[in-house]
């Protein structure tokens, strides 16, 4: 037969591949890898790349996960223990089986971070910043500012730093050793701390304005709210916060046998469990039902487990005294009415239905107020707190605020988030002052999802995770392909003591061991973000997806636009778009 150099060979024997045929011309839609935002991240008041560090953990990259977490959250060992973790409420996995135990993983990473103290770098940027208050908001602001290169000094009125973390949260939830190490770790980044300095008296406001280029006010809300019923000044009646502060500073007040805690939030739970540890029989009085309680569910369960009694749909009417000391509490039975502005059903009194409860002590835990009397007048405020903008800016230039002293939910996470927002705001402000181009990214582009908090990483623009065409859109449950998941229960944290009557303040929740932590991290759906599972790569009928170092590349010259990759992506990280003509 003639040689195959002829145009046509004698036999139909192939001599090339179909790669010469560019079937990509057939398509009218095409896929794009588009990283979206996981709902946990939008829900997180701190603004943490939760999906990102869980994915790193899935890859076994513990150090990288810690680093990613620490970019946004200066105190994961604390939040891992005490945060109310709205991330888990938002978690898409919750609709499938159970939410990923983000808080427990975060706690493990937080503890791991504390294993190594950071080395402080010298300030790299001009400008020094004062932070007033060393609670979570203040420390977060200071932390992010030193990471941004500023010189920062924190002023704390109390003898020890930590604010409400130290005074408000019992040690069985947040061991003091953890808190101390966490604060040391933050300071280790180069934050200067001056305790026992009350700004406004020890250090006058004008002096502060003069000494620093910018100031962050993280004053907190430390004034317990009154019950507003007769008898509140009786002996044995405590503001819950004062009670906690007293116990947390080492005192062991005498309460008597029967203690009634009024309220359904975390302070109420803290008061109840602390009182329990002092030997009391504790009843929590709450005017709505268990379902409406704002306290963290785990805390309520722990309280129940430890023997705290609950009395729902009851509100105090007056405190009954004997010898100037409270002896009982008269209560009004309630029922649930229509939903109020918070979306919960409002308690409505049932006329004529009253009862009396014996009480040797009454702890009121019905909320806290910010004490802003000493603050200069030119910083605008409302009854609920200081008015602060998206970057924590107040009505006075160079002054920023955040945390419980501002109008925002009073949680540790919200405080940490506010501190970060203000740090970004201060960086932005100081750069403007120093004449840097005033084109800064809008707050919207810095948020994790439209409703999320600002990201320090996005602000710095140094995301270590490779992103492909990211869009700030939150992945919904229906965007996922659940065929690629297997139901698996959430791991439970180890807990100390199973029975009633815990009498010490040692930590109750023992968290995850390392293996459990990794296992739980692998439960994450990685909503919206490619985690290189290869589903798209393997299922492309046209082999139009190639592996790259960091992910995948589309071979659009062959892609026929069938959409299988986008339909099958377990986590909604591929979007089909119309082909441009």
């Amino acid at each position: 037969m003639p040689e195959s150099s002829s145009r046509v060979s004698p036999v139909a024997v192939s001599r090339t591949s179909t790669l010469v045929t560019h079937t990509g011309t057939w398509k009218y839609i095409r896929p794009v890898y588009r990283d979206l935002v996981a709902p946990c991240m939008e829900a997180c008041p701190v603004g943490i790349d939760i999906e990102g560090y869980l994915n790193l953990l899935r890859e076994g990259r513990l150090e990288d996960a810690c680093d990613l977490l620490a970019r946004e959250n200066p105190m994961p060992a604390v939040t891992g223990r005490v945060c109310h973790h709205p991330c888990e409420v938002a978690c898409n996995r919750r609709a499938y089986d159970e939410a990923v135990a983000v808080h427990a993983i975060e706690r493990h990473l937080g503890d791991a971070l504390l294993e190594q103290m950071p080395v402080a770098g010298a300030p790299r940027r001009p400008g020094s910043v004062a932070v007033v208050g060393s609670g979570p908001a203040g420390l977060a602001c200071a932390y992010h500012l030193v990471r941004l290169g500023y010189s920062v000094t924190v002023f704390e009125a109390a003898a020890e730093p930590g604010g409400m973390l130290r005074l408000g949260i019992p040690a069985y939830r947040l061991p003091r050793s953890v808190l101390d190490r966490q604060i040391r770790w933050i300071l280790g980044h180069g934050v200067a701390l001056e305790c026992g300095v009350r700004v406004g008296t020890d250090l006058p406001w004008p002096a502060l304005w003069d000494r620093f280029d910018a100031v962050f006010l993280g004053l907190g809300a430390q004034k317990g709210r009154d019950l507003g019923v007769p008898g509140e000044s009786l002996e044995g009646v405590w503001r819950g916060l004062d009670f906690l502060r007293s116990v947390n500073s080492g005192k062991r007040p005498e309460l008597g046998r029967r203690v009634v805690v009024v309220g359904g939030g975390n302070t109420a739970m803290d008061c109840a469990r602390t009182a329990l540890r002092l030997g009391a029989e504790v009843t929590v009085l709450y005017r709505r039902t268990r379902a409406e309680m704002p306290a963290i569910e785990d805390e309520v369960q722990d309280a129940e487990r430890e023997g705290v009694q609950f009395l729902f749909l009851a509100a105090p009417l007056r405190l009954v005294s004997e010898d100037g000391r409270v002896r009982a509490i008269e209560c009004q039975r309630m029922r649930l009415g229509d939903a109020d502005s918070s979306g919960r059903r409002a308690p409505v009194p049932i006329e004529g239905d009253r009862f009396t409860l014996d009480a040797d002590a009454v702890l009121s835990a019905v909320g806290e107020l910010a004490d802003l009397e000493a603050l200069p007048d030119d910083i605008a405020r409302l009854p609920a707190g200081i008015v602060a903008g998206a970057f924590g800016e107040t009505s006075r230039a160079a002054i920023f605020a955040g945390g419980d002293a501002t109008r925002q939910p009073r949680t540790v996470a919200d405080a940490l988030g506010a501190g970060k927002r203000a740090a970004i705001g201060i960086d932005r402000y100081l750069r403007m002052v120093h004449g840097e181009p005033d084109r800064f990214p809008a707050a919207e582009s810095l948020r994790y999802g439209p409703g999320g908090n600002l990201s320090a990483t996005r602000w710095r623009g140094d995301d270590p995770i490779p992103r492909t065409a990211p869009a700030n859109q939150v992945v919904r449950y229906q965007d996922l392909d659940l065929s690629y998941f297997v139901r698996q229960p959430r791991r439970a944290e180890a807990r100390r003591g199973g029975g009633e009557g815990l009498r010490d303040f040692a930590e109750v929740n023992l968290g995850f061991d390392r293996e459990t932590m990794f296992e739980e991290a692998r439960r994450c759906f990685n909503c919206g973000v490619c985690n290189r599972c290869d589903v798209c790569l393997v299922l492309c009928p046209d082999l139009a997806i190639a592996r790259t170092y960091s992910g995948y590349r589309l071979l659009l010259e062959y892609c026929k636009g069938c959409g299988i990759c986008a339909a099958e992506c377990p986590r909604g990280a591929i979007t089909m778009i119309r082909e441009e003509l």
Partner: protein
Amino acid sequence: MKKVMVGNHAVSWGARLARVEVISAYPITPQTQVVEALSEMCADGRLAARFIKVESEHSAMAACIGASAAGARAFTATSSQGLALMHEMLHWAANGRHPVVLANINRSLAPGWNIWTDQSDSLAQRDTGWIQLYCETNQEVLDTTIMAFKLAERLDLPVMLVLDAFYLSHTAEPVEIPDQDAVDAFLPPRQARYRLDVGDPRAFGGLVRPDAYMEMRWYLNEALRQAEVVYEEVEAEWARASGRRYGAVEAYRTDGAEVVLVTSGTMTSTARFVVDRLRERGEPVGVVKVKMFRPFPSETLRRVLHGVDRVAVLDRNLSPGRGGIFAEELRAALYAGDGFLRPAVFGYIVGLGGRDVTPRVLEEIVARTMREETPRREDLWVGVSP
């Protein structure tokens, strides 16, 4: 070594000596002895071939094609209905340029059932691209089987050797069996030009569009056009080893012949006998045996029939509605001759379905050919009494 054997066994012996590697066949009368003997040879180790006992002739040819595509020397044998069933795969073998060798025992086609000799089965496959070689004796069958592989592998074309049912297939004759060494020297192991090879992965026989299909058919035709010359070369080489040669076309006592009988298969022996007798009587009669039907040896026939007045073509076959196929082909070959003094071609349909073609029949045909003024428009059916 000389051995008395039936034609079917001569086929088996030829395949064995050619060291076929893969055999795939399905039994059909009168071919069965071919595969029975090969089965014995494979079973007792005299032949190191893989014999695939398939469930149909279609599969037999498909398996041979597969084996050949993978580089093996492949062989099958069939007859009549079996060949007809293979038809699709015969095209496949030729277009795919697979040098498969097939022995076809000429048998008529049903209905009604008739197992006796008739060339209509093989001639119906004339357009499949196969070389066709018709044999006269058992010795020729054995020699042709061996030569068929050489021819096939030189041209990458499939070869069909053809022998008459019973007159050859089941008739014992003394046959000289060549030494294996001689055959090995003549026919070394197959070196396939293209084969399925995981080291050089290629696709065979995919979609070919109009811009190339015609060229591939042209190549096939070119290969067949060369086949007569290559056959003569192969035969010359075989003649050096065996001392025997047959020719694509053989002229027997045609010198000065006024009438030449054109024959194929075992009728040729009868024709030789008749011609000898007539020559003794002084009648100028000869025989031209056509061994190679595809490619049709047109040039050679024009040459050997040059100056002959009358040609009587004996067709043990029928293209219904047209007549004898050899006569038809010969007429076409002679017509194509430029400035050639054409003999008159007389066509005779004889011996269909195994009816005996006796010396007496041939003598009548010679006589009639001499007697007629011009050939009839249509071939004459000899001895038909409807």
